[in-house]
Structure formats: C-alpha cells, structure tokens
C-alpha cells in the first residue's frame, strides 16, 4: 500500500535519514560527544550569604584536615612494621636472615680462630712447663740448683781406732744411693754422679776438696729408707763403728737444706742425639 502510494516519499525519507546518520557519525569533531549540563535555574554559586559562609567553613575544614594529615604523616615514624606491606616485610625478613647468617658464619670463623690460638697457647705453656720441669730435674741432678726437703743428716766423727778411709765413705754414699737418695752433700761438696773420694795424706779428698772430720753427709730422700740403709745390721754404719771406732749419728730433721752447688760441667765430646 505504501509502496504503491508514496514510492518517492519513502526514497526521500531514506535519503534524509542516511544524511542525518552520516552527520551524526562524523568523527572529526575533535571531541567526544558532550552531554550538556543541565542549567541550574537557581544560580547556585552566588547564593545567599549563609550558603557562602557554610562553603567557606567547609573549605577551611577540608584544608585543616589536609594540614592535619600532613602533620601526622610528618611525625609518623615510618619504621613501624605494622604499616608495612607484606612484601616489604618479607624482604626485610630475608635481608635480616641473610645478615644473621653472615654474622653467624663470621662468629664461627672467629671462634675457630680463637680456639686455634688457645690451643697454640696451651701447647706453648705445656712446653714451657715441661722445659721448666726438666730444667729443675737436671739442675738438681747436676748439682746446679740448691735443694731442700725431707731427709737425713749423718755425722761421722773421726775414728778412734783408725781414720775413716775413702772406700768406706764411698760405700756409705753408694748405700745411700741404693736407698733412693735424691740430693746429697758431703761436708761442703755436692755429691753428683762423677763425685769421687780418695785418701790423701792426713785425711780425705772429694772432687779436689779436702775433707776434715767430722764428716757430715746431708741426704734428701725417704728418711726411713736412708736411715735403714745406714743403720742396717752389718751395714756401713756398723762397719764404721766397729772397724774405725767412729761415732755415727743419724738425725732426721723435717727439712734438710743443701745449699752446696756446683758449676755445670761443660761437655767437650759428648753431644746429644737429635
């Protein structure tokens, strides 16, 4: 019906519509389609004095809040962990644990170093102690050092029948050695391994020093053993008494002091084996 009646009209309508669409679809306007703001019919901004006062107050309040927040944020200690985010905390933890590991490693290094030094110091101290001990022992043995300790003092007067001979005195020394004497002195002569006693005219001589009666033998060792060694039946003591008629007196003081020393011997031929 329509087709029949108004074919021309329809065509022109379509044509118009197309033109209108084209106008609307134009893109070179330079701006997005603008939705027009509805005009306010009261004229809001320049309203009554009360409205202006309220907005001014509001502005002041907002700016005060801004300044307030700013001041708070200024004073806020930023290092509080509560305000940190999760990955910040994770990073912090990993950094701290790395640092802890480094420090632990350093600590163990230093500890082992300290232990090594301690061990070295101990070893050195031990060596020094042994050296001192050796020095004392060899000093006592060689007669380089004075000695004191428990022991016996034997005094032998000149024989009534015949003078005491060197062999008997040396036998006494040997007996005392057998009894475990440690340090010995004969009159003013320190008795060492190389000590000898010989007869000379009008007396005795030990290590080149003339001995005058009464002979005094100071010996450091077990007093009981030493006393027994002298006083044993048929021993040196009875021999001195019987054969030479001398007076043998053995006393056991608490401390026997032997001040007699002798210069260390210098060895010409003997060397220590390394």
């Amino acid at each position, binding site marked *: 019906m329509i087709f029949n009646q108004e074919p021309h009209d329809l065509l022109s309508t379509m044509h118009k519509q197309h033109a209108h669409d084209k106008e609307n679809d134009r893109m070179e306007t330079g701006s997005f389609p603008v939705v027009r703001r509805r005009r306010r019919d009261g004229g809001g*901004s320049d309203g009554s004095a009360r409205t202006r006062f309220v907005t*001014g107050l509001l*502005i002041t309040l907002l*700016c*005060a809040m801004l300044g*307030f927040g700013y*001041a*708070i944020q200024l004073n*806020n200690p930023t290092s509080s962990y509560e305000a940190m985010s999760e990955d910040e905390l994770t990073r912090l933890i990993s950094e701290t644990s790395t640092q802890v590991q480094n420090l632990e490693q350093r600590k163990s290094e230093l500890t082992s170093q300290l232990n090594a030094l301690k061990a070295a110091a101990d070893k050195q101290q031990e060596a020094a102690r042994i050296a001192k001990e050796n020095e004392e022992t060899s000093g006592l043995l060689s007669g380089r050092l004075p000695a004191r300790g428990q022991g016996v003092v034997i005094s032998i007067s000149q024989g009534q029948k015949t003078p005491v001979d060197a062999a008997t005195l040396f036998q006494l020394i040997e007996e005392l050695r057998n009894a475990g004497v440690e340090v010995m002195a004969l009159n003013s002569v320190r008795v060492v391994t190389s000590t000898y006693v010989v007869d000379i005219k009008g007396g005795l001589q030990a290590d080149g020093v003339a001995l005058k009666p009464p002979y005094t033998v100071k010996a450091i060792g077990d007093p009981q053993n030493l006393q027994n060694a002298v006083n044993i039946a048929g021993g040196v003591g009875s021999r001195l008494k019987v054969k030479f008629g001398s007076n043998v007196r053995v006393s056991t003081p608490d401390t026997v002091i032997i001040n007699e020393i002798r210069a260390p011997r210098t060895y010409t031929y003997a060397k220590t084996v390394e």
Partner: protein
Amino acid sequence: MAAVLGLIIGVVVGIFIRPDIPIVLQPYLPIMVVAALDALLGAARSFFERSFSDRVFVISFISNVLTATLLVLLGNQLGVGSQLQTAVIVVLGIRIFSNVSSIRRFIFQS
C-alpha cells in the same frame, strides 16, 4: 583565604596534638594527603583562571580523597596494593605538576 587559614590551623593542631592514627588508616593517609594536595592545587589553578567555585572545590576535594583511598583499598584487596599505590601517586604527581605549571604561567604572565 579560608584555605590558607585552614591549612595553618590543621598543621598546628597536627603538630601539637600528635594523635595515634588507627592502624587500619595508616597506609591510606599519605595517599589521602597527596590527593587532597592535588585538589588544593587544582583549586588554586582555577582561582587564577577566575573560574573558582566553592562547591566544585569541596566536591573535588572529597571525591579525590575518596577515590584515591578506595583505589588503594581495592588494590590491597586484590593483592596489588603497592603497585596501585604507586600508580595513584604517579597520576596525582603528574596532575600536581601540570597544575603548578599552569599556576606559574598565570603568575609570570601578569
């Protein structure tokens, strides 16, 4: 005038009272401050352009702060809080710079 007065009052009160802000609010406070600063500078710019409006300023201030806070809150809930915070700060910083530059243009032209 009111804005400057308010700023001074706020800073003085904040310095002297020193309140404990709740922990929930703590991560959002810097963002809020920056957003408010942006709004303030925008207001200053419009003041120089002679198109300042109280109402617009109040609304833009509040909406700026709320938007920034909500954006960061959303980011925190989605697990991209720090990135979104950075994004907000960057955008606000750019706006602040452009505002400042236009203000400077007004000052040096006259």
